[in-house]
């Protein structure tokens, strides 16, 4: 067994039907399931899904005392959202997601900050966005284009 992807930040997503979700995320969004740990009761205690050098963990169904819920269980509310940065192929990615039943909420559109972006909801209502750089822009150009003030305290030099 090789579990080679260990990014420093990994979102853990709650699903009512985690096995269906893993299957769907692989078919529709291009994830690869590296590991699925049964909870012995039909659920998934832990799983690791890879996309490029990024990863997500899918778990569920939510049990009492876990503080977790699928958006489907809380009227579509999401306490987090997942964004994926694609190197290329954003429109084809969107077409694949749509073909597998994703609800496309924002069609692929060039954004003023230089990325082409689409957003969708998965079958349990988790909100996803996908971006691909289409135009390299400086911070000053982004500020100009968006009308927002942009501070970058972490940038050096």
């Amino acid at each position, binding site marked *: *067994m090789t579990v080679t992807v*260990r*990014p*420093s*930040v*990994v*979102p*853990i*997503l*709650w699903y009512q039907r985690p*096995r269906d979700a*893993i299957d769907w995320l*692989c078919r529709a969004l291009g994830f690869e*399931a*590296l*590991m*699925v*740990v*049964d909870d*012995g009761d039909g659920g998934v*205690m832990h799983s690791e899904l890879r*996309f*490029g*050098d*990024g*990863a*997500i*963990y899918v778990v569920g169904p939510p049990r009492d005392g876990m*503080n*977790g*819920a*699928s*958006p489907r269980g*809380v009227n*579509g*509310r*999401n*306490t*987090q*959202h*997942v*964004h*994926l*940065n694609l190197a290329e192929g954003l429109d084809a990615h969107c077409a694949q997601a749509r073909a597998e039943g994703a609800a496309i*909420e*924002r069609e692929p559109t060039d954004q003023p900050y230089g990325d082409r972006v689409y*957003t969708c*909801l998965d079958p349990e*209502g988790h*909100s996803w966005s996908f971006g691909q750089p289409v135009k390299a822009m400086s*911070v000053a150009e982004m500020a100009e284009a*968006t009308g*927002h*003030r*942009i*501070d*970058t*305290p*972490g*940038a050096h030099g």
Partner: protein
Amino acid sequence: MMRPTIVPAVFYKDPIAALRWLEKAFGFEIASLITDGEGRLAHSELTYKGGALNVGGEWEGPIVGPARMRSPQTVEGINTQFVRIHLDDGLDDHCERARAAGARIVDEPTDQFYGSRTYRALDLEGHVWNFSQEVRVVSGEEMEKATGLKIHTSLSEVGS
């Protein structure tokens, strides 16, 4: 700016206070802060050990359809996602720093059967953060023995 492939966005009622707290408690660094004409937070990016996350306020709108972005505080403490952060070292010190900043430590640092040492904390608005540091390499076989669970590396091994 380096862009990790997967970046979670975490929603707060008071995102500015959250940013300050995440810096102090967990050591995250603010890489960019975007504010609108009225000084409200529009977008922010935090980095930590090569990873990144966004912090934002509660919102909803046509670009996310029927989804509504909410703090756990407005969903009775429920989280639809948790965040896992992998540390190379210093997990226990990290936990003490978080505790001193007011994090609620719901699982103290503990060695897990899968070879990691982990702790779990709730932040000021109830987001669940899992911190993990690898302390031992464990094979899948060992894990199955330790837990009595089946560990699969492909869905095709799993009946539906």
